[in-house]
């Protein structure tokens, strides 16, 4: 008999953090997001955010200089996400 738990899609809950200009553009500093896909990635999260349209689609349009930090380290689009991960969206940095 197949394991009935396998039929239940895994939910990955991540914390999104928006920094500096992006925080102001989006009107929020952070939010939790539940991902229902089997193997969620950074790129999938960005696609979901763009689907909100408006300022989300504008600020995160392909080619915009936005970096993603996964658990405080810069990550690429193919980085896999796990439950409890912190995914931050960073505009170009201007310290120093």
């Amino acid at each position, binding site marked *: 008999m197949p394991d009935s738990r396998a039929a239940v899609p895994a939910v990955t809950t991540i914390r999104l953090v928006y920094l500096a200009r992006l925080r102001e553009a989006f009107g929020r500093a952070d939010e939790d997001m539940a991902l229902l896909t089997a193997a969620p990635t950074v790129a999938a999260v960005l696609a979901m955010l763009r689907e909100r349209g408006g300022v989300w689609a504008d600020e995160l349009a392909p080619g915009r200089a936005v970096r993603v930090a996964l658990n*405080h380290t810069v990550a690429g689009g193919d980085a896999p996400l796990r439950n409890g991960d912190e995914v*931050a969206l960073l505009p170009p*940095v201007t*310290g*120093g």
Partner: protein
Amino acid sequence: MPVRVQTEDFDAGREIAALRGTDPRVGAVASFIGTVRDVNDGSPVTAMTLEHYPGMTEKALAAIVDEARGRFSIVDALVIHRVGPMRPTDQIVLVAVTSAHRGDAFDACRFVMDILKTRAPFWKKEDTPGGARWVDARVSDAAAEARWGNEVEP
């Protein structure tokens, strides 16, 4: 602790004295201090606020210092970066490096500063007569990082 993020000002003389301590291997100390200008991109700047991403900032700065240790023969290094509200002439950042000879101290100090400008998660928001604005990243900063043979991420 070779990296610090703080709202308070710093005393560069005291910090450098503490960094080199009484280590007789040190024959050179190079340091850089970044300060707030009263004009940026043609607009007068009356004040600015620096924000950062707590948790990542310290990690990013420590990684830059580690990379400098791998590239140059240095004895020690210190990075202090301030956050919060600041005014023109205020100190923003201190990078200090000790080494046996001047070449490594100069090079490592410049390396840490150049990489910090493009990789450490700090953002400046300036108050100008036209209102508050987030400072845009400079193309020259990416060029400064590229000088060290690093690929600059988009």
